[in-house]
């Protein structure tokens, strides 16, 4: 990012601040970010008004060094040497400072381990062991009574008022727990099989390039849209990968709602659904995808998007990942992983050529489908991406 908009100040001149305090809220192009102060001191002057967009590195406020030695400080004491200006550049929010310690929980080592695995918050567990100690059984009870979520929950509505910091921390914690519970369940219950195939992207990228020349800048396509569309169409050919495994049986989904894994800042993950991805024209799919990403990051997802994905696509290529080994999000039965697009040696008709390629993987639930069908799916995906004009 290069610039951010100052949304609000959380401090005013004269406030004493400590390193780590949140002093302002800034909107970046991806998300709202809380700005932490790097040093102790007293806010002297706010230099940027709310609503102003400023480049990264702009000095936002001036901070005075902390007052002299503790003790009665007479008011109106002469100003010390000019304070060093402090650049409070937009920064990623660090974890909140630890909450004040309550009474220490008595938790057995095993219970602690199981709680971590299940994503159970020990503070919410009632201990039945000796002296109220929390045992494994207590944690498992708490884990069982916690709502079994399908997809990860929506972030709470965009926090604008004060207290957003606390809510964000809570939200992050809740999300972590949800992810932990879903993933632990996945690895516990789902017999995954993994398939990978390398796909020649030259036709697709050539097609996008040509297509984008015809489109207004705002409507240009990204390869991600092609991937989602191709996955959706390939799933029509292999319906065993599109649906859910519930109560011991696979239930195919009538529609193809592709969950798109989107990472959150500073951490976390949601995979909201692009509804009827197989039927959306590419242009509309691209718009829907952009909209989804924007709303994930501003926290305005609709509940249906969070609950009815019938498959998930996760694209970690931007992070430089070559091959994704996905973990299926229960009750779904498949996750498609997209790796990094890069030029690679490619042999064609006995000649080595440089081609843009990508490794696409499938993690399938072996209870619902077999590797043979998974292989057909990847083959279909390959075929579809080679003729992007048909997407």
């Amino acid at each position, binding site marked *: 990012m290069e610039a951010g908009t100052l949304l609000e100040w959380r401090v005013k001149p004269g406030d004493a601040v400590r390193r780590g305090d949140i002093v302002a809220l800034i909107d970046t192009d991806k998300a709202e970010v809380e700005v932490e102060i790097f040093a102790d001191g007293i806010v002297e002057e706010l230099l940027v008004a709310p609503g102003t967009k400023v480049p990264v590195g702009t000095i936002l406020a001036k901070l005075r060094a902390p007052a002299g030695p503790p003790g009665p400080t007479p008011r109106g004491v002469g100003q010390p040497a000019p304070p060093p200006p402090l650049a409070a550049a937009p920064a990623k929010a660090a974890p909140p400072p630890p909450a004040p310690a309550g009474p220490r929980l008595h938790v057995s080592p*095993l*219970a602690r*381990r199981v709680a971590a695995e299940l994503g159970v918050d020990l503070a919410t567990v009632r201990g*039945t062991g000796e002296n109220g100690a929390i*045992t*494994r059984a207590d944690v498992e009870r708490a884990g069982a009574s916690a709502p079994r979520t399908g997809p990860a929950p929506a972030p709470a509505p965009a926090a604008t008022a004060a207290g957003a910091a606390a809510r964000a921390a809570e939200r992050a914690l809740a999300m972590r727990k949800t992810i932990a519970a879903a993933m632990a369940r996945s690895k516990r219950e789902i017999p995954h099989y993994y398939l990978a195939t390398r796909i020649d992207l030259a036709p697709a990228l050539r097609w996008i390039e040509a297509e984008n020349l015809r489109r207004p800048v705002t409507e240009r396509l990204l390869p991600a849209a092609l991937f989602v569309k191709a996955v959706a169409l390939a799933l029509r050919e292999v319906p065993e990968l599109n649906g859910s495994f519930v109560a011991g049986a696979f239930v195919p989904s009538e529609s193809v709602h592709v969950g798109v894994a989107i990472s959150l800042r500073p951490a976390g993950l949601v995979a909201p659904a692009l509804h009827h991805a197989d039927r959306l024209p590419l242009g509309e799919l691209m718009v829907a995808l952009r909209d989804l990403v924007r709303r994930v990051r501003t926290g305005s997802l609709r509940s249906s998007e969070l609950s009815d994905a019938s498959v998930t696509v996760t694209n970690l290529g931007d992070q430089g990942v070559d091959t994704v080994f996905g973990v299926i999000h229960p009750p779904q039965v498949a996750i498609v992983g997209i790796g990094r697009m890069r030029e690679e040696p490619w042999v064609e008709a006995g000649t080595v050529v440089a081609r843009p390629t990508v490794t696409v993987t499938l993690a399938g639930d072996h209870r619902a489908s077999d590797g043979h069908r998974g292989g057909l799916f990847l083959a279909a995906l390959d075929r579809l991406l080679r003729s992007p004009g048909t997407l």
Partner: protein
Amino acid sequence: MSVPSQASASVRTTYRAAVREAIRDALQRDRRVFLMGEDVGRYGGCFAVSKGLLDEFGPERIRDTPLSECAFVGAGIGAALGGMRPIVEIMTVNFSLLALDQILNNAATLLHMSGGQLPVPLVIRMTTGGGRQLAAQHSHSLEGWYAHIPGLKVLTPATLEDARGMLWTALEDPNPVLIFEHGGLYPLEGELATNAGAVPIDRAIVRRPGRDVTLVAYGGTLAKALAAAAELAADGIEAEVIDLRTLRPLDTPALIESVSRTHRVVIVDEGWRSGSISAEVSARLMEGAFHELDGPVQRVCAAEVPMPYARHLEEAALPRVETVVAVVRRLVGGGGA
């Protein structure tokens, strides 16, 4: 060297007779083996273990000794150094302290201090434990002390099979091996395979499988742990009972394996709690299975008093089945599962 198959014929016998049979077998199999100790010959042993052996094997191989533990244990060490395979009987563990210098400073160290030249293939058998109103002169359980000493092996047979089978394996071992026979076990009756033979002396064994708690016991406490497990089963608490069998070397992997399944452990030890073998077992579980524990390691040990003579006081001082049951119930809490 394995536990005999159950298909073979068996005979009804006692722990005492099984020990005697083990000695007789060793005397028959190896001419270097002889038995030596106080009253082991003409009197037949203070606990009647060696009754009849003098007539069968003669005074060269069944030797009565003066009342000097230091002297006859030292003689045993010398005989072992000289190529014999002595079995030295000490009447009770209390009196073994008179020979502690020989056991620790000579038997346990010579192989090491001679750079491997002087193995001491000596076996010392002695009685341990209380419960027979023999008071503080004869009733203590000091095997845990000996388990502290590198260079020794410390065995605690608790069953007829081990009473019958551990001696031969011990005699084969190049290290000095101490065998602790709990005095309360001698009259123990049971079935023993007629072909019972040598057994391993380096591993613990699960005597009763269970899923809710591991009871660790050895020697005289095994029967108590099994009785407690039977009582707990009536409440739906499935206790696993591990017989340590050997206190040195401790079979730590077996302990960790069991606790990794049950996640709770109660150690039943007739020794005094402080600095006991139960403390060592507890420490090893903390080191190796901390994250498996769903509750604190618990111990049921002897009261830290010289063993009383009065029956009711002695009973109160020793680990009791009901104490084990109560400790397990508290540890397991509301439900068994």
